[in-house]
């Protein structure tokens, strides 16, 4: 079930209504059943995979808590991580591994060892396995008590708003909330619905609109000049942001209406002045996951420089591969690792933020411009259908002076520009203006309702209603 579907609207209304109507002690059950239904709307049988992960980690959590022996605790943690990563590897990376193995074997004239799997990737697998792993790691570290109620633990892994595309939550933030009573709260309901509306706007009006242009360029790289590639990579940067942060907004808003607070996943990343800041603002739940469970355990940045290079590159390579079993994602990760290293190396020599307001603004604009350019360049690899396509697109960049392709449908390009302009105005006001100047939160009801009505009118007028699934579902 996609968030951008009428099925979801009906589903959400019914679940939320029941959630507030039933007694406190069975609220979790409503959410659990709803989450099962939500997941089974994709490929029903895959819920068995989800349950197997849940059962293993639930058991490991309880064993970890009662175990005193550090070696046995490590063994238990290893079991949980192996089970999660094993399932992830099997479904997501096995065929990729097999292809590469076959290439190596062919060099030695050896016939293939393993057959290829003809299976669909369970939707959102990378998200819920990572969320499940964060539970066992936190129990192992002693930061979280093992959850005894299997229903609550299951709900932690499969809470429907964030089940298939995050935010990847931590047990400390969410498990206790699933047990608490959340009576109807006018303010939270209001805020949640507004956030959901903005999420729908980002997905339907911006992401899916830009996708029409982006797909024309990236699916036919041989036919387009360098200017079109530049425009398409910029459009894709906005598309993927609006697609993913739109999903996160709907998820966070949906949970908020029920009184549950999910972590923030995006903080207007394209206002970042450098690549380090970009990663503090982009997909925060995944970045902090890698930081806490991979980068810090490897020593973080308190290590010799050679080791720092290794730590950063490992994190970014894994981050790239996390997105998909394709060399395009690997290169995307490598590029970001490289950008990060260059930034760390250069940062002592970069000018400090100026106290002069005008100069500070110039510094900010230059920083944002450089960061966006680097990020857009890396998105070419992320979006390209294959590595050879990415190379064709980059080769085409030499014809950068030509007039860019304006898109198939006559008015689509104009709609894209309008959509980006609206996004910029809203994000700019959120970034630099106090909350009272934000239209959705204005003290004046006329302005507030006007802004909400205008958003819905724009969705009806400019939204793409058959745009399909969210990009991050495939991860």
């Amino acid at each position, binding site marked *: 079930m996609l968030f951008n*579907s*009428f099925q979801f609207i009906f589903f959400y209304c019914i679940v939320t209504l029941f959630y*507030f109507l039933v007694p406190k002690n069975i609220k979790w059950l409503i959410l659990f059943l709803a989450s099962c239904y939500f997941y089974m709307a994709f490929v029903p049988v895959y819920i068995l995979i989800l349950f197997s992960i849940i059962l293993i980690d639930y058991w490991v959590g309880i064993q970890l808590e009662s175990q005193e022996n550090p070696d046995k605790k490590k063994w238990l943690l290893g079991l949980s991580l192996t089970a999660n990563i094993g399932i992830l590897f099997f479904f997501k990376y096995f065929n990729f591994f097999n292809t590469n193995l076959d290439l190596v074997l062919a060099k030695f004239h050896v016939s293939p060892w393993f057959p290829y799997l003809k299976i669909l990737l369970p939707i959102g697998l990378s998200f819920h396995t990572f969320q499940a792993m964060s539970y066992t790691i936190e129990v192992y570290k002693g930061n979280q008590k093992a959850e005894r109620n299997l229903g609550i633990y299951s709900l932690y892994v499969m809470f429907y708003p964030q089940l298939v595309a995050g935010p990847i939550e931590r047990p400390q933030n969410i498990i206790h909330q699933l047990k608490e009573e959340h*009576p*109807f*709260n*006018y303010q939270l*309901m*209001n805020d949640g619905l507004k956030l959901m509306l903005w999420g729908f706007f980002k997905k339907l009006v911006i992401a899916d609109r830009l996708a029409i242009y982006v797909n024309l360029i990236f699916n*036919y790289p*041989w*036919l387009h000049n360098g200017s079109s590639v530049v425009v398409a990579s910029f459009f894709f940067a906005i598309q993927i942001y609006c697609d993913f942060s739109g999903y996160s907004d709907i998820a966070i808003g949906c949970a908020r209406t029920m009184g549950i607070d999910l972590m923030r996943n995006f903080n207007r990343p394209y206002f970042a002045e450098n690549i380090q800041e970009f990663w503090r603002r982009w997909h925060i739940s995944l970045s902090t996951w890698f930081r806490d469970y991979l980068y810090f355990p490897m020593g973080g940045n308190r290590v010799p420089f050679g080791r720092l290079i290794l730590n950063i590159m490992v994190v970014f390579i894994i981050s790239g591969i996390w997105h998909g079993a394709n060399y395009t994602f690997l290169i995307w990760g490598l590029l970001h690792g490289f950008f990060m290293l260059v930034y760390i190396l250069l940062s002592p020599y970069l000018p400090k933020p100026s106290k002069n307001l005008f100069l500070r603004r110039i510094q900010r604009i230059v920083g944002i411009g450089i960061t966006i350019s680097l990020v857009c360049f890396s998105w070419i690899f992320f979006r390209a259908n294959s590595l*050879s*396509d990415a190379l*064709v697109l980059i080769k085409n960049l030499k014809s950068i002076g030509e007039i860019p392709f304006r898109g*198939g*449908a*006559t*008015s*689509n390009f*104009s*709609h894209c520009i*309008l959509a980006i302009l609206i996004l910029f105005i809203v994000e700019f006001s959120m970034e630099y203006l106090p909350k009272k100047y934000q239209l959705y939160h204005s003290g004046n009801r006329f302005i507030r*309702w006007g802004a*909400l*009505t205008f958003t*819905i*009118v724009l969705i*009806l*007028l*400019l*939204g*793409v*209603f*058959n745009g399909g699934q969210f990009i991050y579902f495939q991860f």
Partner: protein
Amino acid sequence: MKKKNEVIRFFINLGAFLCVLILVDQLLGRLFFRLYFGQKVGPFHQITYAVDSAKQDIMVFGSSRAERHYSSTILSKNLGYKTYNFGVAGEKIVYSAALQEVAFKRHIPKILILDINPFDISVDPTKYEKLSILIPYYSHHPELLKYIKEIGDFEELKLYSKIYPFNSIFFILAGATLFPNKQDKDDFGYIAQSGNMSAKEANQFKQRLLERYTNLSTAASPTDEKAKGYLIQFLDLAKKNNIKTFVVISPMLFSESYKWNKELDQKVEIEKIIKRYPNVTYWDYSSDTYYNNHSEKFTDMLHLNKEGAEDFTNRLSMEILKALKK
């Protein structure tokens, strides 16, 4: 008690907001309706005429290749019947079937020309999404609902909104309203394209297409059975009304285009279907060397320019005359 008050407050506010929203939707919807149906020139005027008024004795159906390849004036002059070209850019056989059904309720023509392409019946979900241009007409042509439902599962529900029928056309509508003189003027549905490709451009384009062909997967493009059904529906309706029908693949710049697009199977499918209809004559100009590689006759790979199109219409109408005399 506080909780109960909050719930009541929420529902009162929600109800009031929905009332405002419905009011705005109705008002803006009516405004867009007036703007849309008040067009005197431009693409929406052309579609409105086709849906509501066209009564000519020769009807041409198809995509942009129909719209730009068949001069209504030349056909009328050479064949002695008034002609209207129903072709619309981006639309495929489903749209032609919808317009044929609507037009036949008003008038049965003497001659039908269907410009067909293998991509009409290959799998491409956008062919159904593009039927959204029919939504504004649903209010006075409820028979179009069958086609509108092909767009998506909840289209009927979306029709409760008065703004939604004008989704995605804001800039075209604004342009046609504010700058009517800058709109393409059609000749009974036919829109001539000016300019031509240079031989160098055509060659570069051919190289890129070849590169694409070698990089695409070897699998042939699958056939869209539903679209095939609409082609059969179109031909059935023509047969039922005993109309002499010409199904034509109009000229292409490169004879290998369908091979490069992996659409040869669909071409064979079309030919098989057409053989079942005695009232149908089929001509394939896609590999006619009179046009192939003659970039001076084309504006792009798929579309003839004005000179090319008028020359083609003249040649085609001579062939039609011969066929009619048999």
